[in-house]
């Protein structure tokens, strides 16, 4: 039972931040694509902005690994 709960906790630790990251990236991505179309010189800033929410899921992954191991 404890193992199952740990597995569920690990799944939630990755899954919830993944959904949040996906939502944030979708919003940033569409706005970024429009910005780059108008101002190509902002491409690097857009890559940075697009990549920022990924930290959430990476940290979620770390928590999940720590829970499982």
């Amino acid at each position, binding site marked *: 039972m404890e193992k199952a709960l740990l597995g569920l906790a690990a799944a939630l630790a990755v899954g919830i931040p993944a959904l949040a990251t996906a939502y944030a990236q979708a919003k940033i991505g569409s706005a970024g694509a429009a910005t780059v179309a108008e101002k190509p010189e902002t491409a690097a800033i857009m890559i940075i902005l697009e990549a920022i929410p990924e*930290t959430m899921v990476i940290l979620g992954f770390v928590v999940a690994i720590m829970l499982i*191991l």
Partner: protein
Amino acid sequence: MIAEMVHFRILGLKSDIKELIEHIRDLGVFHITEEDNGPPSVATKGPVIEKMRFLRASLLGLLEDLGWKDWDNLDWDSVGYLREVVPLDDIGPLDEIEKSLVEFKERLDEIKDEIKSLEESVVALKQVYRLTSYFQPFFVTERNKGYKVSLWLVNSSKLPNLLKTLETNIRNIIPVGQRPFMGYKTLSQGKDLTLLALSVVAEINPTVSKIIEDLGGVPYRALKSDLSDLILESPNMTQMELKWLPKKLAQAKKTFEDTRREWGPRLAALYTLMDERLESLALERKLIREGEYFTLNAWVPRSNLDGVISSLKERFKDRILITWRSPKPEEWDEVPVLLENPKWARPFEVFLKLLPLPGYKSMDPTPLIAIFFPLFAGCMIGDVGYGIIFLLCGIWLKARNRERNGLLCDILQILINISIFSILWGFLYGEFFGDLGHRLLHLKPLWVERTRGVVPVMAFAVALGFTHVMLGLMLGAYEGIKCNNKRHVCERIGTISIILGAVIFVADQAKITHIDLLWPAIALLVFGLTLLARGGGLTGLVETIGSIGNILSYIRIAAIGLSSAILAMVATKFLDVLGASFFGIMLALLIHLLNLIIAIVGSALHSARLHYVEFFGKFYEGKGNKYKPFSRRRETAWKRPY
């Protein structure tokens, strides 16, 4: 590395200005600065300049009309030849060029109009052929009876009413004793329209036509030409026309293509020459002041200084006065920035092209990117097999594009570097297409197997992040010292102290060493907090927490690598489940292909992100002006006009 610049000043005679401008253009190293040379409107106006601008725009328009875009293969010798033989400084030759361009434009329009008209005819004829096949029997029968047949386009919804009205009217206008007659055949033309072929007695045809027109019918003409009626009644003739028209169209297109091939490079050469000359003329006007002298101010890379001086001295002897000096600190923001990196790091300058350039006295991070970027990306891929595939692809594509310089070559070199690191990391992890190397070749990891030893790889990734972020912070502190920005220095050193203190504190609590490190850790934390309070205050503290988050962010190196390794293992697992069958092998190959794409795209994107966000954020400030030498178009990175 950012090239050192010198401020260069030339004082010369007005009579030499044209020769000097062409000479410095040939040298191609002068970044000319704008000094207070009077209002630009005066300097860049005049009948010759205006005419040249107009011609330059006309040439560009003609090139667009021709659809010529082959700038890469422009014959630069012909540009040089034109430079020698075409005088562009007087209005007379420019008028002649304009006259020729107008004539050329007229000829080009004729060819294009012919092509357009022929294309329209082909489309219409194809449609007509369908109609003639349908109506021709009706036409022949009615003609043989001596009736007049005409074609009309009518609204489908009004057709029954129209036919009824026609019948009534025909009965009324037919002379007494003659049998009223009206024959017709219809063909639907889409949703709303119907094509009506109407056959009546020849004498009443004009009256009937008027009635149909009054009821909203339109006489149908298949083509604009006089052949329209004939074609409609003869499918054979339509067929003949259809056979003949494409040949004529192909001939017209060939004429256009020949014109493009012959005149495109010539017009492009003239455009280039016009553009260069316009630039020189505008500069000439700007430099000439009152009196018999002119002054030219420019920035020149120090590495080119000796060559420039000897070349100018040799050409102009003592007719010019040259002075040069190093930039003053108050000029640093204006000095143009030229990146001069060793050959191994040069492809990585592409990363700075996406950002504003660093300031003149700032640090160029290109060599560091050249080391860390492939290291991180290789660590994520970490597979000997994948590395070999990327290496072969990179070498093959580079050999194919050997003659080209530019972005593609840089990207391919980066790919080769990543692949080399992937192979090295692959040996450390013992991976060759996942665990295939272990199964077939008994490949053993030199360090750790990623799928089993997750924690050591994660710890290593964090250590890598710690090194990278600390390096960034140290560079930030160094930049602060160079610019004499005490607040910046305090903030960066404070952050370094706090992070170091936190790491030592954790090491002490985890009993990693037997030495008591509690007090040194506390001392570092207090020292760091004091510096932070002096430097950035609360903002500094927030940035410090952000830096710790940045270090943890490097765990992605382990996470992405782990997912790549597991996906590669899944591919091999399919062979276990399905056996070495065709289906099993294909499925395994497909998964490896997918993993290859994800591996290269993901690793490159995440490595770039780690540099742009985590590393550059600590020290990089994009405030530099780009070095734009006054040179021949051939020497500059050719910026296409469209």
